[in-house]
Each structure stands twice: as C-alpha cells, then as structure tokens.
C-alpha cells in the first residue's frame, strides 16, 4: 500500500504532467479562467485519463504485445481515448443532465488533450502491472487537476489585481504558470531516489 501512495505522490506532485512534463498545456491555459470550470474540466479529465490508462494497459498486454503489433500503438491508443471520452459523455448525460449541459462542451476537448495520450504511452514505457498502471494514470490526472485548480484560483485573483496593460491577460498567465512550475520543483527531493 505504501508503494501505491508513493506512486500517487510521485506522479501527482514530483513528476507533474503539466509543470514537469509540459503535457496538457492547451486546456491548462484555456479552461483556467474560473475555478468552477477548472474543477469540472479537471475531474472529467481525471475520469478519462484513468479509464484510458486501464483500457490501454489491457490493449497493450492482451493484444498489441502478444501479436507484435507495436506499430499500431499510437493509432489504437487514440481510438481507445476517443471511445473513453464518448463513454464518459454518455455516462454523464445519464447520471447528471445538468452537468452535461454545463460542462458537456469541455468533453470533446479531452480527446485532443495530449496529456491523455502522453500518460497512456508513458505507462507502456514504465512496464507497470495493471493496478500500478491505473494508479499512474490516476495520479497524473490528479496532478493535472491540482495544477488547473491552483492556476484558476490565481487567475481569478489576477483578474481583480492592478496588472499593467501590457501584461494583462496571457502574458500575466504565462508568468504565473512559470512561477508555479518553479514552485513545483520544490517537490523534486520529496522521495529519495
């Protein structure tokens, strides 16, 4: 169990998918103007990345590796991710229609989020077992959501601050996320190698 907790801590904070691996920057910049939208997008992405991690592990170990079809990996993973997004869209439409109407517009964006494919491909490289792969995906997605929420909170405060005109908007956002990236470097010594 300790091993699993360390894996979660490592993927969420130390090897953060946004601030260390620089994946998923498009939704990080695009859907971080309000905390509520960021929470919805972050949770939706967490759901999809975890599902995609599980599905891509099964695809890799039960189909691609046994039949030596490694050249189809990227193509089949993209298909799996698109299917996971469609499944999520259907499930959310059934479970929470109000949420679907409000946040449904973000769901198609997840298909083109490179963090989802990146995490699935990194998972294969790591060579983890099933549960570790799923936790790797979940931890990465958790890190994505944490960064999205912190960044959205900072941007909400920045919108009310007296930022000089030349820096307002995107420049202030880029400076803020670069400082956040520096701050996350502080986690790098948390787990001894």
């Amino acid at each position, binding site marked *: 169990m300790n091993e699993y907790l360390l894996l979660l801590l490592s993927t969420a904070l130390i090897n953060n998918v946004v601030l260390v691996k620089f994946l998923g920057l498009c939704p990080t910049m695009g859907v971080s103007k309000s905390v509520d939208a960021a929470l919805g997008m972050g949770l*939706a992405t967490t759901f999809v990345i975890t599902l995609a991690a599980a599905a891509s592990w*099964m695809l890799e170990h039960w189909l691609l590796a046994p039949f030596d079809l490694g050249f189809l990996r990227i193509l089949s993973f993209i298909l799996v991710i698109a299917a996971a997004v469609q499944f999520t869209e259907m*499930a*959310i439409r059934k*479970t929470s229609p109000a949420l679907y109407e409000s946040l449904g517009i973000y769901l198609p964006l997840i298909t083109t989020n490179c963090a989802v494919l990146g995490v699935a491909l990194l998972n294969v490289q790591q060579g983890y077992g099933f549960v570790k792969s*799923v936790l790797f995906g979940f931890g990465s997605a958790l890190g994505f959501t944490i960064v999205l929420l912190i960044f959205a909170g900072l941007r909400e405060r920045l919108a009310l601050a007296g930022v000089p005109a030349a820096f307002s908007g995107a420049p202030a956002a880029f400076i803020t996320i670069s400082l956040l990236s520096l701050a996350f470097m502080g986690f790098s010594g948390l787990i001894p190698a």
Partner: protein
Amino acid sequence: MSQGYHSPAENYDRGLRLVEAEARVVAIEGQVAWLQPEHRSGCGACASASLCGAATLARAAGGGRAGRLAARCVPVAADRLAVGDRIVVGLRDDALARAALTAYALPLAVMLGAALLAEMAGAGESMTAVAMAGGLAAGLALARWAGARAAEGPRVLRHASALSGSTGNQERVA
C-alpha cells in the same frame, strides 16, 4: 426548484453566483416547458463545422422528435413563456461543483476501491480488471442515484433578447 422569473437584482441580493446558458422553448405542456439548450456540445462549434459530418447529423437531429427527446423538462410558469422563446437559464455554481464531484469522483473512487480490494485479495490481473469494471458500473449507478436525490435544475432568469452577449459565461448576476 423555484418557479418563474428571478430578477437580476433579486439574485444579486441573495448572493447567488450563476453559470448561465441560453435555451429555446420547444414545447409547453400545462405548467411544464421543454427547453432545448442552444449549445449542447463542442461539436459543430469549431472552424471546421461546415465540413464536419457529426455536426451535420447534430443539426439534422436538432428539431422534431429527436430534438424533443434531447430537450430538458423544466417546470416554469407557462404564462410567461411561449414556444420559440429564447431564454437565459442559470445554475448555481456550487450545485455545478457538487454535480461534478458526484458524476466524476464517485464512480472513480468506487472503481479504484474495487480494483485495490481485488489486488489485495490476491486476484490476478484479469480478475482485477473485471473487478474494476464492476466497480465502475456500481459507481455510475451510485452516482445516478445520488445525482437524482440532490438534483437542482436550472432556473429561468430572463428572455435572451433582454440582454445580449450572456451566453455560456460565468458571471455575477448584477
């Protein structure tokens, strides 16, 4: 859910922060109005919409029975609305955050819990995957039950023509 209109001033006084969206009234049955959301998905909203097959299908299904099935049933005072009206509906932002947690986090937690339990019980990888799928199904059923219990639908704020440029933005109603 409260019925009828709430003026922007009333909402402001009660400190409500609302996520707003535009909808069209497609039918009225007694005291119940059927609302069709104006932007139901990101598909068809991008620059390639004119070339996109999915967007064309969505447009084709937009009216008639299919559109009616996709519409939401919202009880409102029928004397204020007519078929074809475009209105602005609002949803409280805390309700939205609660719905997001129920719909996404609950199934995920049950799914991960089931997988970890199966792993700790010494199940093989195939059985762990089956347990995870079972946990996902149970989590989705639980989320549906919890979502139906705590359901808080959107409320009608005003006619869309009364205020322009209010689509899909989160703003303080003032």
